[in-house]
C-alpha cells in the first residue's frame, strides 16, 4: 500500500520529514490535549488570568476541591444539565442524515456520472452554486414557513434540512467516485438483463462501498458539528450537542458555565475519536478507490 519511493530516502531527508510531522502533530493536537487536561480543572485555573501554568498545576483546583483534578465539569454537564439527552438527539440526527444523504446522494451522483448529456454538467454546476448560499440566510428563510406548517422544532425537519444543505457536497464527492468505476461494469450487467436500478444496486454499490463510507464520514462530520441549522430549527427538548454547548456559555446579561462547555466538548469528541480510529482505514481505502479525482 505504501509507495516504495519513500523507502529510498536518505537519513537527513527522513529526519526532516519526521520532525515536520512531529511539529505538525504538536500544532494540530496541542489545543485539544490542553483542553482535555484543563477540563479536569476549575475555571479559574483553566482560564487563569494570573498565570497560564495554573492550568497545568491546578493550584486553585487544589484549593477548591482538595485534589488537583476535579470531575465537576463533567458532573455538571452530564447530570445537572442532562447533556446525555443532546447526545441522544445528535445520534439520531447523525444516523438519519448520513443514511438519507447517502441514499439519495448515491442515486443522484450515479445518474450524473452515467449521463453523457450536457445537462448533467449543468446540474453539477448548479449544485455547486447552491452550495455558495450562506446557511444562515437559508435558515432564516425557513423559519416562517416551518412555523406556519407546524414543522418547526422536530428532529426530522432538521434532518431533512441538513441532508438538503449537504447534498451539493455529497453529489460532487460521490460523482467523482463513480467516475472512477468503469462503465463496462454496469453496462454488461444490463446486457445480462438487469434493470438500471438492479445494476446500480447489485453491481456498482458493492464496488463503491469504500467511497460511500468516506462520503458518509464527511456527511457525519457536517451534521455532528452543525450549529447554524440546529440552533435555529430545534426546540429546547430536541436540542443537539452543539447548540446545547453554546447554551452553557451564557449571554450578555447572565453568567454561563464555561467548564460545563469544556467538559461537554471533550465528551463530544470521544465518539469522534472512536469513529476516526475505526474508519481511518476506510477513509483512505475509500478515497483510494478513486475518490475525488474528477
Amino acid at each position, binding site marked *: 500500500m505504501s509507495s516504495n519511493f519513500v523507502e529510498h530516502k536518505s537519513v537527513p531527508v527522513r529526519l526532516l520529514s519526521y520532525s515536520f510531522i512531529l511539529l505538525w502533530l504538536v500544532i494540530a493536537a496541542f489545543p485539544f490535549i490542553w483542553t482535555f487536561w484543563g477540563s479536569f480543572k476549575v475555571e479559574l485555573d483553566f482560564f487563569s488570568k494570573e498565570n497560564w501554568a495554573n492550568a497545568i498545576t491546578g493550584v486553585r483546583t487544589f484549593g477548591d476541591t482538595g485534589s488537583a483534578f476535579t470531575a465537576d465539569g463533567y458532573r455538571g454537564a452530564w447530570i445537572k444539565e442532562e447533556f446525555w439527552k443532546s447526545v441522544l438527539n445528535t445520534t439520531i440526527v447523525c444516523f438519519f442524515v448520513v443514511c438519507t444523504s447517502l441514499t439519495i446522494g448515491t442515486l443522484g451522483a450515479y445518474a450524473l456520472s452515467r449521463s453523457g448529456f450536457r445537462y448533467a454538467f449543468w446540474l453539477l454546476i448548479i449544485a455547486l452554486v447552491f452550495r455558495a448560499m450562506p446557511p444562515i440566510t437559508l435558515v432564516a428563510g425557513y423559519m416562517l414557513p416551518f412555523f406556519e406548517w407546524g414543522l418547526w422544532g422536530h428532529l426530522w425537519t432538521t434532518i431533512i434540512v441538513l441532508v*438538503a444543505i449537504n447534498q451539493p457536497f455529497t453529489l460532487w464527492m460521490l460523482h467523482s467516485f463513480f467516475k472512477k468505476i468503469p462503465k463496462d461494469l454496469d453496462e454488461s450487467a444490463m446486457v445480462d438483463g438487469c434493470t438500471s436500478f438492479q445494476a446500480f444496486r447489485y453491481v456498482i454499490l458493492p464496488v463503491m462501498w469504500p467511497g460511500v463510507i468516506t462520503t458518509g464520514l464527511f456527511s457525519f462530520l457536517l451534521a455532528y458539528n452543525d450549529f447554524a441549522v440546529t440552533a435555529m430549527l430545534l426546540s429546547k427538548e430536541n436540542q443537539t450537542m452543539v447548540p446545547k454547548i453554546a447554551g452553557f456559555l451564557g449571554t450578555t446579561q447572565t453568567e454561563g458555565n464555561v467548564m460545563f462547555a469544556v467538559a461537554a466538548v471533550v465528551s463530544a469528541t470521544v465518539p469522534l475519536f472512536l469513529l476516526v480510529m475505526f474508519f481511518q482505514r476506510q477513509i483512505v481505502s475509500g478515497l483510494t478507490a478513486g475518490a475525488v479525482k474528477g
Partner: protein
Amino acid sequence: MKHRTFFWFFLPTALAMLLFIFLPIISVVTQSLFIDHEQVFVEVENCDFFGCKKASMVDNEATEQLRREQPLGRFVGLDNYINRSHLAFTEVAEIWSGSDSVGNFFKQLFNLPLYRALIFTLVFTFTVTPLLIILGFCIAIGVNSLSQKIKGVVIFFSLLPMIVTPLVGSLILFWMIDSRGIIGSSLQLLFDDPDLSLKASATLTWVTLIVYGVWHAAPFAFVVFYAGLQTVPQDTLESAMIDGASRWERIRYVILPHLAPLVTFVALIQLMDNFRVFEPIVGFNASAHATSLSSMIYSDLDGESRLLSSAATSSVLTIIGVVILLFPVLIRTWRDWDRKY
C-alpha cells in the same frame, strides 16, 4: 443513460435541493428587490416600573392597510444593491472625485461596510487557500513515509483541528492567544515584547484569523491528498527512478500531476468555504478588525433589527462572489467534460 432513467435516479436529490435551496434562493432574490413599507408612527406614552415616557411607535392599523395592498413591500429594483451598506455606487463615486491620491481613495473605500468586509474576505481566501493546500500536501507526503504502525494514530491526531466544534475550539484558542495565555505569553517571550497582544492590532488579528483558518482546514486537504498518494502508479514512479530522476523531480513530474485533479477539488471547496468565513470572526470577537460578507449577514439578521432585505442582498452578492471566484475552476471542469464525452 436514458433521460427517463436519469430523471428517476436524480429526482430525490433534486427535490431536496429544489425545496430547501432553490426556493429559498428565489425568495432571497425577490426579497433583495424590495424594502419595507413606509411606517406610520404615532406618538404615545409608554409606562413601565421606572415611570412614563413619550415615544413613537408604529401605527399598526395604518401600516396594516399598506401591507395588505403590497404584501412584499415597496419594489426598489437594484437600490438595495447600490446603497451604502452594499456596493455604495454614490459614495464610491464621491470618494473617487474627492480623493487626491490612490492611497487615500482606498483608505476611504475601505471605510464602507461592504468593501471593508470584501478586502478582509479576499485576503483571507487567497492566503488561507494556497497555504492550506501546501501544508496539507506536505503533511500527506510526510505521513505517507511513516511506518504502517503509527500511521493510524498520526492520521487521527492530524484530523483533530477539523473535528473539534469551532464554537468552543475558538473560545479556548481565544484564551490561549490572550497576552497572558500560553501561546500569547510564549510569543511575547519569543519576540521579546512584553506588550505584544494579538487581539489589539488589526494586522495581528488578521494574521491570527489566517493562521486559524489554515490550521482548521489543513486536515481536509491532508486526507484528500494522502488518499491520492496511495494511487500514484508505481510503475511510473519506478521507471522515473530508473531514469535517474531525483526525489524532487519525481514529486514535480509524477506525483504533482497525478494529484492535480485533487488540488482542483480541494481548491474548489476551500475557496468557497473561506469566502464565506464567519465562525472564527465571531469566536475570536474579532469584528472590530475583521468583517466578512457572512458576518454582515449575521448582524443584519439579528433578532431585534431584522434587516431582511439587506441580508438577502448580501447573500446574493455572496453567491455572485463565489461564482466569480470559481470561474476558472468551472471552465476547467467544462473542458474536462468535453474531453471525456
